[in-house]
């Protein structure tokens, strides 16, 4: 994946670029808004990671400029401002996701990968499948190896979100935001409990587990050997 990081904090940026490269991506750095915009215009990128407060050209202005030119490259906004307000303005300016600083690198990586995939994924598949696990969005049914699995509505949405991002890492915060629509972090491990309950329904009694815990990052659903 080709990533452009627009970030003015040199230390944070070099750490980020290094970590992204270690994760197997190509990453380049622009240190201010103007050079970020010109790089974004001239080359193809899979995802832009843009800091909100940048010298010369503000991050939000950069995104607005790109969007005005019809550039739909997914953008992840990084910001030291974590309020819901700021999140809303960021997304309104054309950002696709918003990550408050300080962030865990695993969180950023998971979000960037999901963003890159979003463009390619065929919109609104009615049926999704991972190995022998099938989910039908129209009839709201889930079956594994031909065996129907009854799920609660919230469990269904949880599984649907995981399956839409099959093979990718999904963090707890991403689940909380997208499945529950809550933008705060509970102190307790509620998400883990929900996952283990879901796991009990879709993996228990089958020889091959599909729902995996990625240590220090989150969860992933896939049928590769873990």
């Amino acid at each position, binding site marked *: 994946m080709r990533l452009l990081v627009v970030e003015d904090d040199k230390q944070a940026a070099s750490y980020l670029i290094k970590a992204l490269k270690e994760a197997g991506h190509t990453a380049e750095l622009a240190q201010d808004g103007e050079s970020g915009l010109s790089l974004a215009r001239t080359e193809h990128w899979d995802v832009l990671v843009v800091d909100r407060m940048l010298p010369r050209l503000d991050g939000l202005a950069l995104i607005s400029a790109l969007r005005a030119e019809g550039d739909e490259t997914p953008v992840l906004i990084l910001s030291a401002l974590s309020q819901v*307000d700021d999140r809303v303005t960021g997304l309104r300016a054309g950002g696709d996701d918003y990550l408050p600083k300080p962030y865990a690198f695993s969180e950023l990586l998971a979000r960037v990968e999901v963003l890159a995939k979003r463009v390619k994924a065929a919109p609104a598949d009615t049926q999704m499948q991972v190995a022998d696990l099938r989910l039908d969005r129209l009839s709201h049914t889930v079956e594994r190896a031909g065996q129907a699995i009854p799920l609660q509505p919230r469990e269904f949405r949880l599984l649907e979100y995981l399956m839409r991002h099959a093979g990718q890492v999904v963090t707890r915060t991403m689940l909380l935001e997208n499945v529950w629509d809550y933008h705060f972090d509970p102190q307790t491990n509620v998400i883990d409990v*929900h996952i283990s309950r879901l796991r009990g329904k879709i993996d228990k009694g089958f020889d091959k587990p599909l729902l995996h815990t990625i240590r220090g990052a989150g969860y992933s659903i896939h049928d590769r050997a873990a």
Partner: protein
Amino acid sequence: MTALPRLFRTTAFKLALIYIGAFSLLSVSLFFFIMQGTNSLMRAQMVQTIDTDLEGLAERYAYSGINGLASGIRQRSNRPNANLYLLVDYTGNELAGNIREVPESVLAQSDGEIKFIQYARPGDTPEQGHAYEAAVRIFSLPGEFRLLVGRDMSEQSSLRGLLGQALSLWLLAMLAIALVTYVFVNRRVLRRIDNLTKSSATLMSGDLSGRLDVTGTGDEFDRLAENLNTMLNRIEALMLGLKEVSDNIAHDLKTPLTRLHNRVEAELSRDLSAADARAALEETLSETDSIICTFNALLRIARMEAGGTALHADAQDLALLAADVLELYEPLAEEDDSITFSFDAQSPCPAYVDRQLVSQALANLIENAMKYGRPQQGDTPLNIVVAVKEQATGACLTVSDNGLGIQASDRVRACERFVRLDSARSKPGSGLGLALVHAVMQLHGGSLELSDAQPGLKVRLCFTRESGYPNKGK
């Protein structure tokens, strides 16, 4: 200070000047209009009187000739408020009449048109001259007799004088009223505005404790002063809050930062195996995470309390909102036999609230209950009851547990930032959970109330009907 130019610059003075000008102009034109109207009306009346008189005289002349006419004129001249008559022969000798000193040149123009002349009355001394004014018509009769019939105009001119007098009195009175008003405005109103200006100048210079004077008359200046004072109170409270927050940040973040510093220092001072170093780094990471968490919560609370967070409130079903949060936590009870949840709600229970903030407040309360609300004795399970009820004043949300509860004397303190009651010190936590709930409720204009659930703690959040419209009724 130069008093006069300052006086001229005031709005009151300019307004007074403009009003005086406009009213004078209007009055003068009104008087002019009245004068014109009366003049033409009186003249028309006069002409009519003369004409009627002439008809009578013409009849008399037709019947009994010049002598009859002369005796008729004599007769009419003696009546009170008589018209003016003069009959002369061809030499200009008077035959009959009640006016004197009419110049020959006037009598010569005997064309019957209306003329204005000066005349004297019989008995007047020559020194008085032609003292009176009259409108007359002069005719010539066969035999070179000439007849003059007219009407004295002194009535008209005295009326004109009267009107002129009224006008000047009126203008004078207006000027006096304007002057009095101006003095009143200047002395009373300007003085109070000056006072307000003076007081605000001291406030601007940095002393926020001062307040504007309220005289107690309840007039618009008092209302302005009251509003400004309320504003000053709010500013002062905000400044105080800001100071408190920065003090708290300084104090409460210093502690974990010092701890972190010491740990790193201690680890560095000994020889570490790779595994040890990793463990130390992981511990450091989790400690920084918790500091960041505290910091975020603190900032969120501070911004809410300072009114810096816009309320994204919309119409919500409080019962549904609570059910959603509860659903997030319910699996915990399934995992852990020592926790049970009960939910008691009337749905729908409409409230105008910010879903994110109220959900977070409820999540904090549930997490608090799980952390601190456990019953002490034996194996009694923790029962968390979440209830949503529509009260007379608005929707209310209650979370209660069956643990130890909070002493009545500690209940207010428990909602402050960083306050951790003794019973909670042994458990992890930042001391910000209830403070955030408190801030959320304040932002919604609702109330937060802690009470005894017998046993346990009962926390009640009540939204008023106006909740979600910040600063209403405050």
